[in-house]
């Protein structure tokens, strides 16, 4: 892993690459058949067969379904079929007010829920044109970085399991649990927090949060070193991941791939660094890039991004300012609990905000944040009412999944598992 390297420019012959990546005809990497056709498809060549991987398969991370056309164990063409977790969240999002919105979006990317909330809240705040207090911003950063750690730990767990190292599964969860425990203390829930809301965060950090965070930061480095000794230097691990699922930067750009997948090709693009939001320009961290664009790079990048996040969290602990945790704008923020007992107006105000919601000026906005999986964007249209007219989340996993047929071509089934695992799709975010 080198530190931020010189950014390569998109090449001129991008169109050609694009054609090579996603050819249209028979020789494309994709099995261009509809779902029902795939179901009954029998290749003419009887050395070939079509295998359905998923939607209920242990290594497809939930309900991804892959149709693989195989010759022996070699994958020739494949087609990812998604939608098995389509929840209609964008439709539901139009029924919920802006205050209720984070409840909805937090259930999209369930392994890093705070990022969806953040994108939603930032979009709403941009429409409202409000500036949230310093402390709220830093709390958001703290929570997001912790969430990035827990999400990447989850990746280590599932990746280890997919390659067959069952131990990694448990170790990853064990570490993740420590972070979740802190989340539970701060937000009240282990997952689906609904903590970052338009106007700030739901509650101030509880007493002792600093010690708890420090405890995680103190414990984790040793555990990460264990991961290193268990995997990073291990020959079987190298054999399984190195040179598998290779992709280069041009192909990534053509396919709209973001996040660790893009960075593994040596292309240092991280929204936190390049288009900073919150206060990321005030903290010091490195953007990690790989050099081969293979599964091993993606694994290593994620492992080391945990370390980078820990570095950021330490800086946040130093810089965390005092102040309010949410904006004191009567229009957006409900009155504090103590005021409700004293004042009728406060009670009415509280009732109004939670039943009707607050009105947001008409307009449309796109906001993106760097989630552990890549660029997570929120496109929001308001018609001036209390509910979004249209709420669209651009999930990084959704776009990243398109790379699968290309990466899977001419690899073995076992490699397919490794590739799916290191692309690390979260199906909730893919299907929404």
């Amino acid at each position, binding site marked *: 892993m080198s530190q931020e390297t010189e950014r390569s420019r998109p090449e001129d012959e991008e169109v050609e690459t694009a054609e090579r990546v996603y050819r249209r005809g028979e020789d494309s990497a994709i099995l261009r058949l509809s779902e029902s056709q795939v179901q009954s498809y029998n290749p003419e060549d009887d050395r070939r067969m079509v295998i359905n991987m998923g939607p209920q398969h242990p290594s497809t991370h939930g309900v991804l379904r892959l149709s693989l056309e195989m010759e022996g164990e070699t994958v020739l063409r494949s087609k990812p079929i998604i939608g098995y*977790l389509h929840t209609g969240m964008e439709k539901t999002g139009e029924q919920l007010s802006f205050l209720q919105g984070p409840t909805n979006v937090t*259930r999209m990317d369930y392994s890093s829920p705070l990022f969806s909330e953040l994108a939603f809240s930032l979009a709403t705040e941009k429409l409202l044109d409000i500036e949230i207090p310093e402390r709220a911003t830093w709390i958001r950063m703290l929570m997001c970085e912790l969430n990035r750690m827990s999400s990447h730990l989850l990746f280590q767990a599932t990746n280890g399991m997919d390659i067959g190292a069952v131990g990694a599964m448990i170790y990853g969860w064990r570490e993740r649990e420590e972070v979740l425990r802190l989340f539970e203390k701060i937000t009240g829930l282990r997952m689906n927090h609904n903590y970052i809301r338009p106007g700030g965060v739901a509650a101030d950090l509880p007493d002792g949060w600093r010690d708890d965070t420090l405890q995680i930061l103190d414990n984790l480095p040793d555990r990460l070193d264990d991961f290193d000794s268990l995997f990073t230097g291990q020959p079987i691990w190298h054999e399984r991941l190195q040179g598998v699922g290779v992709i280069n930067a041009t192909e990534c750009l053509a396919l709209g791939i973001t996040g660790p997948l893009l960075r593994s090709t040596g292309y240092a693009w991280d929204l936190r660094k390049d288009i900073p939001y919150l206060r990321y320009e005030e903290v010091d961290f490195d953007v990690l890039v790989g050099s081969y664009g293979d599964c091993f790079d993606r694994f290593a990048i994620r492992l080391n991004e945990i370390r980078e996040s820990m570095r950021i969290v330490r800086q946040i602990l130093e810089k965390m300012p005092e102040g309010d945790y949410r904006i004191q704008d009567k229009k957006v923020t409900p009155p504090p609990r103590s005021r409700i007992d004293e004042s009728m107006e406060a009670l009415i105000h509280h009732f109004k905000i939670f039943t009707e919601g607050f009105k947001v000026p008409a307009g449309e906005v796109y906001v993106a944040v760097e989630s552990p999986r890549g660029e997570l964007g929120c496109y929001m249209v308001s018609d001036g009412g209390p509910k979004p007219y249209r709420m669209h989340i651009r999930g990084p996993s959704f776009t990243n999944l398109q790379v699968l047929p290309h990466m899977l071509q001419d690899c073995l089934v076992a490699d397919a598992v490794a590739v799916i695992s290191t692309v690390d799709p979260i199906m909730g975010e893919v299907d929404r």
Partner: protein
Amino acid sequence: MPKLPILGDTSSISENGLAGFDHNFLTGKIEDLVKWSRTRSMWPATFGLACCALEMMATGAAHYDLSRWGMEVFRASPRQADLMIVAGRVSQKMAPVLRQVYDQMMEPKWVISMGVCASSGGMFNNYALVQGVDQIVPVDVYAPGCPPGPETLMHAILQLHEKVENGEITRRRQEMGAGAGIMVEQRDGQTASKVIIGKRE
């Protein structure tokens, strides 16, 4: 069949199989043994759908440790699994698959509906989701929460163990009419849906 002194009237065995056994000393003890073994070794199928799947896996991990009940053997093949934990929201597209997996499981089989989305659709009351997995498969235990914490899931599992220990070993589950018995006609999004409460057809 002749009438045996210990087994009692066995004439119905030839017709109904084991379900035809009268309950007596011998079969009673076998029942206890079978129930004991079923509660101690209930292998779940790996059927993770959404958020709840993470909590389900967390329940199997070091902090909560399902292996204490012999349940760490998550079987990927439904043929060998006893318990289907429907962990997460079931979309209209997933519903047939879920039913198929359930049908592929061998008797005896149980279903835990984990989380509100699986139990009732939860906060997503819309066109895309099946409003409660009990429309598709008979559910034994509903675990509330969004997502239910590992403690809740463990509680649900213990409830199911209790149910197994108090139930019968031979009857097929479907005939017992398990599940809440709420049927919602599948919608196309354009018209209001019809809700049937009562016996499944």
